[in-house]
C-alpha cells in the first residue's frame, strides 16, 4: 500500500500527545544517531586507511581507539578560538552552520528502517500508531535533498570568502564552481530515478524497490545514472579524490585554513556527516533502502535497519577506499569531467529512459521495436558525443594556438 508520500501518523485524528512524542523522539534519535555514526565513521575511516597502509591506526583513545573522534572533538572544543581581523566577522561565524545544518536536514528525509520486505509497507507501529521510521517524508523529498546539498555549498563558499586571505579564497572559488557544476549532473542522474518511480517522496522510492535486486533503482535505471550520481556525489562531498576545495598540498587547508577550534570542528563534522547522509540517499535511491531479505523472526523494522546500516556502511567504506587509493585530479580536469562527460551522459540517459518508457506506454513494450529504439538512442548519443568531442578538440586547438601567439 502506498501512502502517496504522507506519514500514516498524520492520517486520521488531529494531533495527539503520542504523536508529538513520537515526532520528538524521532528527531532526537535521528540527531543522536547521526552524531554517533559520524563519530564512528571518522574512527572507521582512520582505522580502515591504517589497515590499508599496514599500520595500526588510532588505538589509545578507548578500546581500539574507538573514542578517537570524541577526543578530537573535546580537544577542539577547548581550544582557543580566533576570528581573523581581516575577515567578515558575521559571515565568518555563520559559515560553519551553513555547512552543518543542511547535512543534518538531509538525513531527515531518508527512510532508515521499517518493514521494507517484499509486500511490506515500510511502516512500524509504535505506541499504537503506525508511522515511518524517518523524521519526515515530504512530498518533495528529493527536491529537498537537492536544495539542502546546494545550501551546503554556501557554507564552504562563504567560509573561504570571509576569511580574508588568499588560499581560502581560491578554495571557495573552486568550491562554488565545482559544486555548481556537479549539482547539474547530480540532478540529471536523479531524474532517471524519478522517471522510473514517478514520485519525489523518498519513502515511496524506497518502497518501490522492495521486490528484490531486480527492482532496485540501480537495475531499473540501468547502472549509468548510479555511476554518474556516485561520481557527482563524491565531488559534491569534497571527498577524495575530489577534495580540491581543501586540497592540502595545493591550498594548505582551502576554505577552512583560517578556522580553528569548534568552528573547524563543525566543518570537520559536516564534511563527514555529508558522506553518511549522501551514502544514505544513494542507498535509498539505487539500492532499495532498508529492503532486503527479512527473516521471519524478530521485528521487521530491525531487519530493515540492519539492511540499511549495512548498505550505508559499504558505501562509506568505498569512500574511504577511494581516499586511500586515488590521486587527486586537477581542478580543470574535474570540471571537464563534469561538464563534458557526466552532464551530457546523464542527459542522454534520461532521454533514453524516457523514450523507452513512452514506447512502453504506447504498447511497443517488447520485441524488436524496443531494441530498435534503443539502438537509435545509442547511435544518437554516440553521434552527440562525437560532435561534442570534435567541439572540444577544436576549442583546445584554438586555445593552444592563441596561447602560442601570446606566450610564444
Amino acid at each position, binding site marked *: 500500500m502506498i501512502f502517496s508520500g504522507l506519514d500514516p501518523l498524520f492520517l486520521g485524528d488531529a494531533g495527539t500527545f503520542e504523536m508529538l512524542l513520537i515526532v520528538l523522539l524521532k528527531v532526537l534519535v535521528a540527531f543522536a544517531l547521526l552524531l554517533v555514526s559520524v563519530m564512528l565513521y571518522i574512527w572507521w575511516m*582512520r582505522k580502515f586507511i*591504517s589497515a590499508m*597502509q*599496514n*599500520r*595500526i*591506526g*588510532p*588505538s*589509545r*583513545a578507548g578500546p581500539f*581507539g574507538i*573514542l*578517537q573522534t*570524541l*577526543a*578530537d*572533538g*573535546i*580537544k577542539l572544543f*577547548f*581550544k*582557543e*578560538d*580566533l576570528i581573523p581581523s581581516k575577515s567578515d566577522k558575521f559571515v565568518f561565524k555563520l559559515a560553519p552552520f551553513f555547512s552543518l545544518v543542511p547535512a543534518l536536514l538531509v538525513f531527515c528525509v531518508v527512510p532508515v528502517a521499517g518493514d521494507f520486505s517484499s509486500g511490506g509497507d515500510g511502516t512500524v507501529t509504535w505506541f499504537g500508531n503506525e508511522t515511518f521510521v524517518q523524521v519526515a517524508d515530504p512530498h518533495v523529498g528529493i527536491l529537498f535533498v537537492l536544495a539542502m546539498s546546494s545550501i551546503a555549498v554556501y557554507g564552504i563558499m562563504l567560509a573561504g570568502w570571509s576569511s580574508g586571505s588568499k588560499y581560502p579564497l581560491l578554495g571557495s572559488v573552486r568550491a562554488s564552481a565545482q559544486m555548481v557544476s556537479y549539482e547539474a549532473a547530480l540532478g540529471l542522474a536523479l531524474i532517471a530515478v524519478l522517471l522510473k518511480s514517478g514520485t519525489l517522496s523518498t519513502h515511496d522510492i524506497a518502497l518501490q524497490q522492495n521486490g528484490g535486486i531486480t527492482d532496485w533503482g540501480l537495475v531499473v535505471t540501468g547502472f549509468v545514472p548510479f555511476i554518474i550520481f556516485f561520481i557527482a556525489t563524491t565531488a559534491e562531498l569534497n571527498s577524495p579524490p575530489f577534495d580540491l576545495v581543501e586540497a*592540502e598540498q595545493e591550498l*594548505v*587547508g582551502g576554505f*577552512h*585554513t*583560517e*578556522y*580553528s*577550534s569548534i568552528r*573547524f570542528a563543525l566543518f570537520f563534522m559536516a564534511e563527514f556527516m555529508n558522506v553518511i547522509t549522501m551514502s544514505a540517499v544513494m542507498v535509498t535511491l539505487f539500492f532499495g533502502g532498508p529492503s532486503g531479505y527479512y527473516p521471519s523472526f524478530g521485528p521487521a523494522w530491525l531487519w530493515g535497519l540492519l539492511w540499511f546500516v549495512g548498505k550505508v556502511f559499504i558505501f562509506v567504506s568505498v569512500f574511504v577506499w577511494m581516499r586511500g587509493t586515488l590521486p587527486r585530479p586537477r581542478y580543470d580536469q574535474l570540471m571537464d569531467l563534469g561538464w563534458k562527460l557526466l552532464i551530457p551522459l546523464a542527459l542522454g540517459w534520461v532521454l533514453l529512459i524516457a523514450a523507452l518508457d513512452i514506447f512502453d506506454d504506447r504498447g511497443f513494450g517488447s520485441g524488436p521495436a524496443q531494441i530498435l529504439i534503443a539502438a537509435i538512442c545509442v547511435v544518437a548519443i554516440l553521434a552527440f558525443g562525437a560532435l561534442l568531442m570534435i567541439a572540444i578538440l577544436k576549442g583546445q586547438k584554438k586555445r593552444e594556438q592563441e596561447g602560442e601567439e601570446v606566450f610564444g
Partner: protein
Amino acid sequence: MPNLPLLGDTSRVADEGLEGLDHNFLTGKIEDLVKWSRTRSMWPATFGLACCALEMMATGAAHYDLARWGMEVFRASPRQADLMIVAGRVSQKMAPILRQVYDQMMEPKWVISMGVCASSGGMFNNYALVQGVDQIVPVDVYAPGCPPGPETLMHAILQLHEKIESGEITSRRDQRDGGAGIIVEQRDGQTATQMILSQRK
C-alpha cells in the same frame, strides 16, 4: 568555613580568588577529560625543515605510526595544530617565519624541538643558524640526536603527553608569559613530571 561540600577547601579563596579553589568532583573530572583528549588528539603542524623532517614523517609512517595517538593528522594550517615539531635547522632567515607560525597557532600549543640543530644549532655553530630554537619560541621538550630516530621522537611526544596529563590547564597562562611553556606547580602528591616509560602500560 573552609570545607564546603562539592567545593572542598575554600580557605585560599580570599587570597587567590577562584584560582584558590581545589578541584572538586565536577571540575576535576572535566579537567581530566580535557587532558585526556589533548593527549589523544594532538595534531602536529607540518613544520619540516631539514633532515629531522624526514624522520618526523617516518614516525608517522607505517613502521612507527603516530596515528596510534591520533597524531597522523598533520595540519598544514597552523590554526588547527596543537603541536609544533621544529624538525631541523632553523636559519636566521627562517626564524621570523617560525615565530609567525607559532603565533598563528591557537592555545593550547606545545613545541617539541626535534634534533640537535633545532635545540642548539648542533654541529653548525656558525653565523647562519639560530643557536637554539628556544630563543624564538618556548620549547617544552627537547629531543636529542641528529636526527632523532622515530622512537626518540615518540619518547619526546610521550614525555609531553605525560607533562600535559600531570600539569594543570587552568592557571598556566599567568605563570609563563603567554607562551606555551606548561611547567606549572604540581598538585599535591605529584612531585615529578618525569616518567619511566617501561613501567607504563
